[in-house]
């Protein structure tokens, strides 16, 4: 078996005095579609920031694509759609093409211009998320779900091996959430992109993910979706610290 895409060993992190992550051990296998669940404030975004090297762990080590994170240089191999991605300034006058092009900016490098090849990549990425007809539309004119697709396209232009999405479906209606998961499923299947998805849609994620992780300061669960859904409500309320209802969608 090939080495994991992400591997965290004994990670702890505290903001000032407040411990947010406590001795986390976990791996994302290559090709996985991992759903990261947990209550608000459970440390999901913090965990992602540690994977992206935006925060340094107080304890433990992170390996990315097989190497220590301190030496990692290949940032364009990692795609990231932030929790804040759809709180951007909706009036910003940029077309879909322009927004997706920003994914290539650092990759192309200073004092260089986009060439034909880059432009084709941008168009391809827009096509992959099914938004081709909106290429020259202002991003502010699109719906929340469509905007999320554009932010995914921005990550796809670099052919990432790992795509991390932090609560991308908040504020997106049910219909579009389903289409969104189908898109992720396709990227995972056809392009073998490893996915790490933070979400609260427990019903939908267990239908699509290959692995589920529950995080609330420590890792409470790490296993297959079937195992997760077979957990009793009592087990889950221990993770969340309060009673939970498992929401399953009937089709």
């Amino acid at each position, binding site marked *: 078996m090939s080495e994991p895409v992400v591997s965290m060993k004994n990670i702890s992190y505290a903001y000032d005095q407040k411990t947010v992550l406590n001795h986390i051990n976990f791996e994302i296998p290559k090709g996985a579609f991992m759903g990261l669940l947990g209550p608000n404030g459970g440390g999901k975004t913090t965990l992602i920031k540690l994977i*992206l090297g*935006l925060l340094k762990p107080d304890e433990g080590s992170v390996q990315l694509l097989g190497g220590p994170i301190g030496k990692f240089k290949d*940032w*364009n191999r990692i795609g*990231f759609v*932030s929790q*804040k*991605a759809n709180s*951007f*300034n909706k*009036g*910003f*006058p*940029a*077309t879909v*093409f*322009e*927004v997706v*092009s*920003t*994914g*290539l*900016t*650092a*990759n*192309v490098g*200073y*004092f260089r*211009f*986009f060439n034909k090849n880059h432009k084709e990549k941008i168009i391809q990425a827009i096509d992959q998320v099914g938004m081709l007809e909106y290429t*020259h*539309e*202002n991003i502010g004119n699109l719906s929340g779900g469509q905007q999320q697709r554009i932010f995914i396209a*921005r990550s796809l232009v670099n052919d990432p091996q790992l795509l991390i999405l932090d609560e991308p479906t908040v504020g997106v209606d049910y219909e579009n959430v389903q289409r969104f998961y189908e898109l992720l499923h396709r990227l995972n299947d056809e392009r073998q992109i490893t996915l790490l998805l933070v979400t609260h849609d427990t019903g939908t994620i267990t239908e699509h993910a290959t692995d589920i992780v529950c995080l609330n300061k420590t890792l409470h669960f790490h296993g297959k979706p079937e195992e997760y859904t077979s957990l009793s409500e009592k087990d889950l309320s221990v993770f969340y610290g309060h009673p939970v209802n498992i929401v399953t969608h009937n089709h």
Partner: protein
Amino acid sequence: MLADFLEYDFLRYTFLTGLLIGIIAPLLGTFIVVRRLSLIADALSHVTLAGIAFGLLLEKKFAVTLITPLYSGMAFSVIGSIFIEKLRGVYKAYQEIAIPIILSGGVGLSVIFISIADGFNTELFNYLFGSVSAVSINDFYTILGISIFIVMIVGLLYKELFSLSFDEEHATISGIHAKAIHLLFIVLTALVIAASIRIVGVLLVSALMTLPVAASMRIAKGFKQMMFLSIIFGEIAVVAGLITGYYLSIPPGGTIVLVSLIILLISIAAKKYNFTLKKAHENNLQKK
């Protein structure tokens, strides 16, 4: 009407300088507006005023002619811009506080320099509201050099500037040097302001950077288009403003801003009209 501007040297240099700032002010203005930094332009123009007052003081009291007010204005403006970036770093959660600090500092220094020099009424009036006759051949060449430099840097770093303006977090994560580029950008802004003050004046220079952008923002598709439209609007405002200012003996700052405002109103109206047309069309479709 243009004849005078082509015939007399001093007017010709004013006119050519006007064409230059009609490009560079809206060019940087585009980034300033989308990054919500419009007030920084105002703060910097007041610091520039302090620099100009300092230059005039040197000229008047010490007969220094090597450092012209344009150069001292530029120096103050650039130093002020670096201060603003630093202050924005210090007050992370209240970045706009940098603006009143720098603005009042600029005005305070100006007042001190002006009173030490026992006032310089007409020159100062020119610097506040702009002047048709103020651009010397030396100033013109300096501003030409600055303009070429600015257009080159913005062209070369366009995709980085755009990425940072759209989503700073993403740009930083992907490895763009946000701090260095911000600093460079604000220094360029300071240079544009110092270059523009001769013609539009301290009080109205930020208008030339922002009004054409505000107008084109309403009708443009995408960022690049907005940038080009802003420059076209900026040029129209400068040319029409300079000519009417000259013939009506009004400081061009006033006429340039008035033309910009008219363009802005037209673009708002155009958008509205377009919008209602679309609505009417949709209503018709629905009726069918």
